[in-house]
């Protein structure tokens, strides 16, 4: 199977990271107003997750860390070269790993699922795929 060009991978990663910034920003804004993200299909999963102590790390909503992560991933997608390739892979690996952990918390500890968190986890999964392909296919090669 032919690997997509690095330009294609970077372009898709750019859109996905930008979309991720939007999702994480929405969660952070909804939380900062004392509320919670609204579940599109109804239910109270988002409220339960937002009210749980897991929604904050060091007193900061984890969505804020999400925004930061997606911004860095966006930068890695926009930049060329091995540093950007490795940074993109490393950042998406951290993001994906943390998404796995958060999904575990939702399912087994908080016992509620927030669609916005699921959306972010899906985006992180796509980003790890794109960045892994980019690293495996193009690292060490001319930009």
């Amino acid at each position, binding site marked *: 199977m032919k690997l997509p060009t690095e330009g294609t991978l970077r372009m898709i990663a750019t859109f996905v990271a930008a979309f991720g910034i939007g999702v994480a920003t929405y969660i952070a804004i909804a939380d900062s107003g004392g*509320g*919670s993200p609204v579940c599109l299909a109804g239910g*109270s999963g988002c*409220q*339960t997750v937002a*009210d*749980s*102590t*897991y929604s904050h790390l060091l007193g900061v909503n984890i969505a804020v860390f999400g925004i930061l992560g997606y911004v860095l991933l966006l930068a890695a997608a926009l930049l060329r070269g*091995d540093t950007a*390739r*490795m940074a993109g*892979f*490393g950042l998406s*690996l*951290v993001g*994906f*790993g*943390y998404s*796995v*952990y958060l999904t*575990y*918390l939702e399912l*087994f*500890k*908080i*016992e*509620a699922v927030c669609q916005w968190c699921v959306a972010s986890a899906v985006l992180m999964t796509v980003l790890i795929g794109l960045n892994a392909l980019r*690293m*495996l296919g193009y*690292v*060490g*090669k001319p930009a």
Partner: protein
Amino acid sequence: MNASEQRRKVLLQIGSAAVFLAIVAVAVLIVVSSNETSGGDTNLEDVGLVKRELQGIPQSALVLGQSSAKVTLYEFGDPQCPVCKGFSEEIIPTVVESKVRGGEAKIEFKNFIIISQESVPAGAAAIAAGEQGRGWNFIDLFYRNQGPEASGYVTDEFLTEIARGAGVPDIATWNKARESAAILGEVKRTTEEAQQLELTGTPSFAVEGPGTQGIESLGTPGSAEALEEAIEGAA
């Protein structure tokens, strides 16, 4: 191998090491998290125990058991009452297993505030949890984490922790409900109801069924067997 290939090899090795470290880090996080006792994000006692004891039994408001059950056992209790705590831990679970789970009877908890006014917000919080199907989880968990009478432990933080441990799904709605005039009025109403039944202490029990003439007071039976016999007599 030229320099470019050598560099690519090193970078891929770094990438592989990062993958390995990430897998280990996530595994450690999950293991540490799953080893936490009680409710995961609380310091409460017996969160899992209460959940297991009530699992699979229908709840509506503060009624535990199938709505079609012919006999209703009423428990008039004060959330701060230490004797109620003893009943909740040692006597009620037996009755729940023998009479409620199978559908023979249902139990309704009614607030009978006698210890201090600190019990009012606790009772209201239980009713609000009942509106979300976790009333009995709330009451049981409250009793299992009860503090000394009128010592000021019934704070908003404590009640919220109990609600979270009880699995109340929508904490914001629960917060609004527990402070509503309707629910605070309900606490007052059931306390007056207990007084009309001439109950004098907590917990007091009453039973109602095809074999009784209205609600019959049982006082404070000292054993699960006595409550089971009362249920059988009312059937």
